[in-house]
């Protein structure tokens, strides 16, 4: 059982200014203070239309800096993805791409810009396409697997250069499986490869991150049983509560070692993850707000911090740049008072 600290008055005041109540366990006092200082709403005029957030590292490898990508639903047509600087003087959003309405999407730095990955929902099939922001046209990720339903597309985080391998949750045969689309020499993607990972439930979402010589896989598995929590997402889609499972993958993307849960017993709705060297940071939305699990290395017991919010938090995003964790979350999505909230905290020491 987690023991939560009662906030001091100055801390409550700081957090309340951001519309959040924050609580943390005893081991995460430093993270609590930093977050309370830095949780800030991002000035963004179309906040009520925001449906999703991503944080990616821009700039050259030597001087990366975070960029926040924001998807907004358009009344007519598709979904607009723009980029903003999460810090510094306000600048107009940079249009990146228009993807299909309510598409699942992801982004990664690429030579010449930002690669946008998105789903393209047909009636019988659902494809994955990718494009370079600002460039015309798009290419099909699943060009070698035309008939299929591919969702939850993600670039593998931390890959050095585009084309970055893509993972997706594929529906078929009455179950959901994690598949990998590897890049091919022509710059496109090859036939999917089923990733044989331990699925202790119905796979709903998964993120693969570069981690040391191999990878870290974080999976969300739908909770079984009656009365499982669910909520409507920013796009009004049903989001089932699930359990997060983590497992290390080797360089060949085969599981190594046991599966562990970053938030044992805690149902989560959405999540994002980032790695800092051997460290791991996972930000997930839960019924009462959001939780962050951060550990400096694989053997370290993670610090878990909870953000409490009276309004639903969604679309969590986390990015490690240097020794800083950048966090973003959408508050009260779809409501007139929706806000994009940002913070940054020191990454846990190795």
């Amino acid at each position, binding site marked *: 059982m987690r023991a939560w600290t009662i906030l001091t008055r100055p801390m409550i005041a700081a957090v309340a200014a951001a519309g959040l109540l924050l609580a943390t366990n005893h081991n995460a006092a430093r993270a609590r203070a930093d977050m309370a200082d830095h949780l800030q709403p991002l000035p963004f005029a179309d906040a009520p239309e925001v449906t999703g957030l991503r944080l990616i590292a821009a700039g050259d490898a030597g001087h990366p800096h975070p960029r926040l990508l924001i998807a907004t639903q358009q009344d007519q047509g598709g979904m607009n993805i723009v980029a903003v600087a999460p810090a510094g003087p306000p600048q107009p959003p940079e249009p990146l791409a228009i993807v299909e309405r309510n598409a699942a999407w992801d982004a990664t730095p690429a030579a010449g810009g930002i690669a946008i990955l998105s789903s393209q929902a047909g009636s019988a099939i659902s494809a994955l396409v990718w494009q370079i922001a600002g460039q015309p046209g798009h290419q099909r990720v699943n060009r070698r697997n035309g*008939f299929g339903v591919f969702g939850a597309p993600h670039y593998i985080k931390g890959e050095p250069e585009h084309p970055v391998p893509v993972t997706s949750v594929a529906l078929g045969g009455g179950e959901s499986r994690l598949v990998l689309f590897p890049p091919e020499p022509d710059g496109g993607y090859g036939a999917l490869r089923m990733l044989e990972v331990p699925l202790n439930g119905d796979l709903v979402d998964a993120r693969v991150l570069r981690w040391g010589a191999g990878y870290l896989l974080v999976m969300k598995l739908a909770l079984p049983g009656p009365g499982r929590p669910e909520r409507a997402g920013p796009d009004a889609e049903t989001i089932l509560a699930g359990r997060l499972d983590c497992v290390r993958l080797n360089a060949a993307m085969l599981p190594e070692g046991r599966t562990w849960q970053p938030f044992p017993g805690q149902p989560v709705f959405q999540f994002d993850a980032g790695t800092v060297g051997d460290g791991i940071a996972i930000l997930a939305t839960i019924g009462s707000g959001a939780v962050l699990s951060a550990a400096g290395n694989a053997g370290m017991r993670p610090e878990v911090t909870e953000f409490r919010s009276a309004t639903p938090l969604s679309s969590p995003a986390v990015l490690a740049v240097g020794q800083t964790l950048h966090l973003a979350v959408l508050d009260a999505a779809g409501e007139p008072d929706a806000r994009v909230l940002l913070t940054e905290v020191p990454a846990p020491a190795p």
Partner: protein
Amino acid sequence: MCIPPSSNRNQQRHAQVRPRGGRARQNCPLPRLVRLTVAGATQLQGSEYGEVVDNDCVITVTATTEPDTPQVWANLNWSLGDANDQNNAVRVDRLAVGTRRLTVTLANGQEGSRTLHVDITLVDLTDLAFQLPVQLAGTRRWKAYESDGSARVIATTSPPQPNVYQQLRWDSGAAVMGQAQEHDVALRPARDAAITVTLGNVCEKSLVATVHICTWPALHIQRELFDSLDVLNDGVADFANLFDKMWIEGRPNPAVNTPAANCQSILWYTAGGTISVAPRFRVTTHPTDTESLYVAGQAAVGGVTMRWVSAAVDVAPGAGFVTVPQIAADMALPAGVRCEDAFTIDWYFTNQDNSAWINAGSTQHILYVGLQAPTENRAYWTLLDASCRNAVGQTTENGFVPAAFAALTGTTGDGNGLRRKGDGVRTSYYLQGVNTSGSQVEPSVYSTRGILSRPDGTGRCGGWADLMKHMLRLHGVTGYSLWLIRGADPNAADMTKRFLVKNCAFNGAGTSNAAPYTHLGDQTQNECVKQAGLAGQGKTNPEFDFGDHVVVWHNNIIYDPSYGVHGYADVLTYENAAIDGLGTAQRGMYQWAFAGTPQFIALDTSPGYVEHATDGGATWGEIAVQYGTNADTLEQAPENRGVLTFMNMYPTPVDGLVYVPRAIASAAGFSMLTGHWV
């Protein structure tokens, strides 16, 4: 004074001598044997005495004489027995059954009173036995079961004669008319009932018999565990939770919004299969002793009566429940699909002598019997119900598929969708029109799971095809294929190429410049105008403009579960029944609300065409003749406005595509839809 008689002749002689000097002495009268007194036996009548044999007791017969003096007694002669010292009594043993006469004679007694006799009859009580089949260890112990009847106990005497029987004395029980040697002991309540019968009065003999009256157990069915295939609940709240294959006393029947764990289980078997069940009974009447009995169930399905008969089962006195190992029915399920809403098993247990079955209650189940062994190892309740209910009696795949598909034919249109058994939500096809979810992850619109668990119950065609597949696989039907339809673009990823599901009205020749498309999709232009329908599952006006679609083929028949239509033997027939035109979204989509449902339509549309690829070597005429038309008609068709022609002696279209108007192509047997098997 008289001279007493002597037993000796001298004395007798002397007695006749007159005494000297005095009066002659008067002789005494001769002694008389007055009577015999019997002790240790019961006088029956007169000189008949009776008694029961006894090793330890004797009968004493005492003679009374007159005078009753030792001198007289000395003249007594006893025919049997041991005389006492005074010779006035004898002791007769009681060792043997039979009648013996004891005669005593007074040697010098008066005439007529010299001899007396008694007849002593000795009888015996030799046995006492219940007329019951089960005798227990110990002395004269029998077992019986509590009932409204009685157990008869019979005494055996020696000799076995009514006059002896009449002497029997019983301490309990009820006499049996005319049978003094028999008594009846009531068999209620359960107890150890001892009955004593006694014979004789002096040193009487008694025998005791005991009947151990036991309570036979009574059972009532409390639980059944079946070897059913797995059935899952559906609906939002209890999705994919397994029915536990049990019937448990007191649980409600399966119903909408009742969690699978809280209701009686759905049962699912395959035709020709055997139902096995492990019943558990509540012991409603506890037995006195551990009893062994049999239990049996009986049910009828499709005219076949099947029985489950157990091996012997022990019921201990303190047992609350009796669990019986799994029993297989003696008869297999009959051939053919079945849907039994009230499959009833009547349970029985045997009575104490296995001569009758006693009712142990009944259980009722929803039983589905599939066509053949499933290739889907778990069934969602809604699909199992829909397929079985509509295909009752079907015994072949080709008969089953169209029959089961009927579950999806009456469910189109607003408010008519197939109702989920789990939560009552009506399923639908594109319930929100073009705003329908595109979720690829569960609960997905592309999957059976999604349609059966989403709050809105809606799905896209991929989901409905998956649902139909699932339904067929529940019955072991695998001879189906999916046919992915693409509007004139079988392989490319170009989702801008659309087709329009009925109903659209094409007015005039159209003004679109995007040949081969002819009509503007903008609904304000009145060229290609959306009409009501074609209704899909639970939705009168679902999305109708698509880049892809999928249908199911089986036995050379097309089934379109999204729209609940089937019976088309080829693509062209299906196309004519379902598709009103083609479109392109190159210039975008026109969005509006039709009858309250958000819709879009490609900005450029066409009643349809067939693409004909040419390498430039064929003239218009040569191409036209393949479609049963002529060169002018084909070349001047608005669909071909964008096709360049080599103006030579035989006008020839340049390399590329020539578009054959749908009406022409269709008449010639060509379909405009393309697709591929998946």
